[in-house]
């Protein structure tokens, strides 16, 4: 056993490790791509449901989610990200950067979540791989999670019901991003505007969060936007 994890064997395979398998995960025209909330049929609810309420929910579906990991001590990694993305990875804890249709969230000191349009994901991944040096990892997790946007005057009340994290202005300014408990599951919560918040949730919990949000926002009135 101890022989299998001997460091000299890992070093001998270092070149092989550089070559990682990668593929474009985007579904072609022949395949139908379904978001985790496909079954909820939000488009129909948006058409037939209420038009006024304190909370508006919109799913930003089928985006490209890339988890980028690497050390902040690795300059080739940080410089490569800057070159490929056109902006720096946010090294300040709990911060995010949004530029055009690309946004990066700080998840941990060595982990970021980049969200780009679904059709760009593979190209961005390739550009990052080409530009970055040293020890790093990029994983396309697009199929594993989805983005929900909550907006409206009563969103903060819904968040207060759902997470133990303090969402008061003085603790949660626009642009801050926090991974915390959300309705007994977990969500990456980002404030994108005064009354606008974004949740990144896991695919397997999407239905649960959708049911939770309906219940939690019922008293304020929930509007679904297509």
């Amino acid at each position, binding site marked *: 056993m*101890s022989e299998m994890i001997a460091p000299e064997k890992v070093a001998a395979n270092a070149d092989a490790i550089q070559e990682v398998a990668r593929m474009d995960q985007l579904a072609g025209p022949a395949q139908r791509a379904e978001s985790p909330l496909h079954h909820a049929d939000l488009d129909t609810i948006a058409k037939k449901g209420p038009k006024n309420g304190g909370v508006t929910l919109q799913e930003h579906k089928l985006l490209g989610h890339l988890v980028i990991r690497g050390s902040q001590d690795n300059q080739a990694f940080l410089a490569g990200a800057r070159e490929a993305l056109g902006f720096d990875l946010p090294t300040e804890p709990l911060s995010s950067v949004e530029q055009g249709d690309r946004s990066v969230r700080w998840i941990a*000191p060595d982990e970021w979540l980049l969200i780009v349009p679904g059709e760009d994901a593979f190209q961005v991944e390739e550009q990052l791989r080409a530009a970055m040096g040293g020890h790093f990892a990029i994983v396309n997790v697009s199929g594993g999670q989805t983005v929900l946007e909550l907006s409206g005057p009563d969103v903060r009340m819904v968040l207060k019901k759902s997470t133990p994290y303090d969402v008061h202005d003085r603790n949660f300014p626009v642009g801050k991003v926090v991974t915390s*408990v959300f309705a007994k599951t977990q969500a990456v919560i980002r404030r994108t505007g005064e009354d606008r918040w974004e949740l990144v949730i896991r695919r397997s919990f999407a239905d649960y969060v959708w049911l939770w949000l309906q219940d939690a926002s019922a008293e304020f009135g929930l509007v679904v936007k297509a």
Partner: protein
Amino acid sequence: MFYIYCPHCGEHREEEEFHAKGQAHIARPADPDSCSDKEWGEYLFFRKNPRGLHHEMWVHATGCRKFFNVTRDTVTYEIKEVYKIGERPSVVAAGN
């Protein structure tokens, strides 16, 4: 409920976000193959259970998912210090 400072996120969070991971600073024997059964067994199974200062590991499970160390008083439950993995605690019990 604890209100725990995560040294990686740089702020206090609710205990709900963390998991306790047991005693900190357990060194794996340098050469496991030449350990006696007693040494190996103590490494695997035997843990301190002090009354007073205790150094333990916690993980920010639903946050940044990083491990760190906490020095806690097991009598008062007061958290004396939080420090990253690899750092030495500055608060230690007399005689340690």
